[in-house]
């Protein structure tokens, strides 16, 4: 790959944006450049990234899922409620995580039925199920805040891989989640680039009819996608509960903006067919950086949502402009071929 192509890549632009923003914040407030702050940005990115990996898969396939926060909190909260009711209190995390993932997959299956079986447009389908999931949870599972979550989950909130005490300032803690999340990101990346399922996801985003004619089952692929996203959201949901050390059924509402913005800024095309895990990782880091540190620039917290919303629109506009520029170039070079 030549230099020019490398510079034009979305990932390069994102890295530049992250570096510039860091410098601007760092110059204004020196406490930005501490290890503790870096680890904090990571910590706030873990759950976001797991959600984002799911959303990335859906967006590449040409769909959208806005029910993932509902699925996440449903799975996390329900797992905690189930464990309390049946007085399961194991030492390790396996049970709550398995429970949450299974619940997530079941909810994802409901999305799959709406989308693959009934052919409802993905935005509307997941908007509808999002409401259903939250409503069912509040009605049948519970609507109260749970602060005494199972011990294993509670302990995990402070499971650090590294603790570094600088000579002065706060203790820097790197959470152990960095390892499983990194492995998960690599796994999703391999899944998308090296497996038939992954390529089918890209194929769907490139063209539904062409995919069908290749002999790939569109419905089966869609069903797998939404169940996979459900499972990932369940996993993210239980980790969210663990890191927060409480289970609040009203949480995560509104987080779809941050995560979809991160994925789109990461270069995934909202029209489907394009997107990478690396771009998504950078997108998530950028959003976490903005949400956590804009305040150091003297920007009030209430502006954060506006900033993220603006970034989402900028990301999509850049995509649209690139696309129309490409189309124009193609037209000039080959316009005599069209339909003759």
């Amino acid at each position, binding site marked *: 790959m030549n230099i020019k192509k490398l510079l034009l890549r979305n990932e390069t632009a994102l890295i530049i944006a992250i570096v510039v923003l860091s410098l601007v914040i760092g110059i204004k407030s020196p406490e930005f450049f501490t290890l503790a702050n870096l680890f904090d940005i990571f910590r706030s990115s873990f759950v976001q990234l797991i959600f984002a990996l799911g959303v990335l898969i859906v967006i590449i396939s040409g769909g959208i899922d806005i029910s993932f926060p509902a699925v996440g909190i449903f799975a996390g909260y329900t797992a905690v409620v189930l464990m309390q009711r049946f007085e399961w209190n194991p030492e390790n995390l396996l049970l709550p995580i398995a429970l949450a993932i299974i619940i997530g997959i079941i909810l994802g299956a409901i999305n799959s039925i709406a989308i693959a079986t009934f052919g409802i447009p993905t935005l509307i389908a997941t908007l509808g199920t999002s409401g259903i999931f939250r409503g069912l949870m509040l009605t049948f599972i519970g609507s109260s805040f749970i602060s005494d979550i199972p011990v294993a989950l509670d302990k995990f909130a402070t499971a650090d891989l590294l603790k570094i005490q600088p000579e002065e300032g706060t203790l820097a803690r790197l959470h152990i989640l960095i390892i499983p999340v990194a492995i998960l990101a690599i796994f999703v990346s391999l899944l998308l680039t*090296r*497996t*038939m*399922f992954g*390529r089918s996801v*890209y*194929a769907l*985003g*490139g*063209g539904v*009819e*062409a*995919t*069908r*004619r*290749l*002999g*790939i089952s569109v419905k089966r692929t869609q069903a797998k996608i939404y169940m996979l996203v459900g499972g990932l959201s369940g996993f993210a949901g239980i980790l969210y509960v663990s890191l927060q050390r409480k289970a609040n059924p009203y949480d995560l509402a509104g987080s779809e903006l941050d995560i979809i913005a991160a994925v789109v800024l990461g270069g995934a095309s909202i029209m*489907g*067919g*394009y997107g990478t895990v690396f771009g998504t990782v950078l997108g998530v880091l950028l959003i976490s950086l903005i949400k956590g540190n804009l305040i150091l620039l003297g920007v009030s917290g209430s502006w954060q949502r506006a900033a993220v919303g603006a970034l989402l629109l900028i990301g999509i506009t850049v995509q649209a402009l690139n696309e129309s520029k*490409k189309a124009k170039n*193609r037209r000039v070079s*080959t*316009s*005599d*071929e*069209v*339909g*003759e």
Partner: protein
Amino acid sequence: MSTLLTAEYGVKDIVKSFGGAKALSGVSISVKSGEVHCIAGENGSGKSTLIKIMSGIHAPDRGLIRLGDKSFTKLSPREAVHEGVQVIFQDFSLLPNMTVAENIAMPTYILNNSRILSKKQTKEIASNALDLIGVDIDINTPVADISIASKQLIAIARATNLGVKMLFMDEPTTALTRKEIKRLFEVVEQIKARGVATVFVSHKIDEIQEICNTITILRNGEVVGDGLMKDFNRKTISQAMTGLDVSESRIAPKLEKTTKKVVEIKNFTTKPTFSNISFSIAPGEILGMTGLLGSGRTELAEAIFGQYPVDSGEIIVDGRPIQLNSSSKALKAGIGYVPPDRLTQGLFLEQSILNNLVSVGIDQYQSTGGRLSKTRLIEAGQHWIKDLRIKTNNPQNPVTSLSGGNQQRVVLAKWLAMNPHLMILNGPTVGVDIGSKREILKIIRDRAEEGMAFLVVSDDIPELVQICHRVIVIKNGHISKEFSEAQLDEKTLYEELS
């Protein structure tokens, strides 16, 4: 190999209905390996239904599908591929977001039920497939960035890579220029030599005569003629397809001698696309314009309509010089333009036929206060449906419900309703069947007779000879030759082009 050489592929007594309407009633077709067979027929004759049955998309109501020594009452898409049936659809069904290599290799992986892909293997499969048909295309390029002609070749490489025994090509030449078609035919000859039974679906009679050994002609879901290609000629094929006596003699109306000019183009130049283009068109004159891929003819046509920038030069409409930098100015000056790609540029596909018909010049239908008069809209729409013989039982149906030829007539009607002084038609009969083509050419002739001037941009040489008073040939952005009415002749035009 010996069994492959004698194998026969096709269908026997196939019947297929869609909700009461019979698409195929007892159709039988047989193609031998190593043979190029033509299926000819108008839109709606059942060609596409037949392809869909052979590729497993539709199940027939009755009849048999025969593939070598195996018979099937129906196929699934997977079975069809397993049995070696491949279809190259008109849109090629390629994935624009993936590389050439992946597009070619995907079906192989699917066929082998592979779950894991290797980049190395993908590239190997693709290079081999392209080598096999003797084509050199960079396999790492995304398909979105390559030309239509290359896409066609990639679709062939992909299809022939899979141990294909029967290959359908649906209107493969529609989007290609003469030179590219020649290249395509070379590839088809290679496939043929490898013992593939190839089925060529096309409207273009001179092409099927060139490439096909045998032919089946369909009309209204029935076989109305089949046999060796050499036993048929242009006229007999047209007659069988349409059920009408179609003549292809010249139909251009007699042109009154006049010094009046509707449009005068002087030294149009936009480097490097075209330069020093000058010509004029008289009232009632039909001027033809043709040229190869990249010759600049489409850009030139768009420039006259104000959609392509002109660096220098002058355009005089009805004696007055005008500034052309937007299509709305061209419209105001009385210039209309029907683009080649009617599906994306000329029609609002989801809108009703009626709305499409009246969408240009909608101002005419205003009543007091700027409201649109519904009765006047409907009257105008019905006038055009009748005048251009658009086949529909309900003008409120969406345009997508019409056949290609009828859609093209809607586009024409829409622009004719403006009563332009000069009508530019780019590829007016691309993708329409013979019957519709004849109707469309007749519409052009009738309007020219009433004094409307036409500029017809086309690849279809017989069509140009049939309808035009004069033809100019564009080469490398220049007018290379002008043919007067007396000089118009298919052979010399082809020679000038190639």
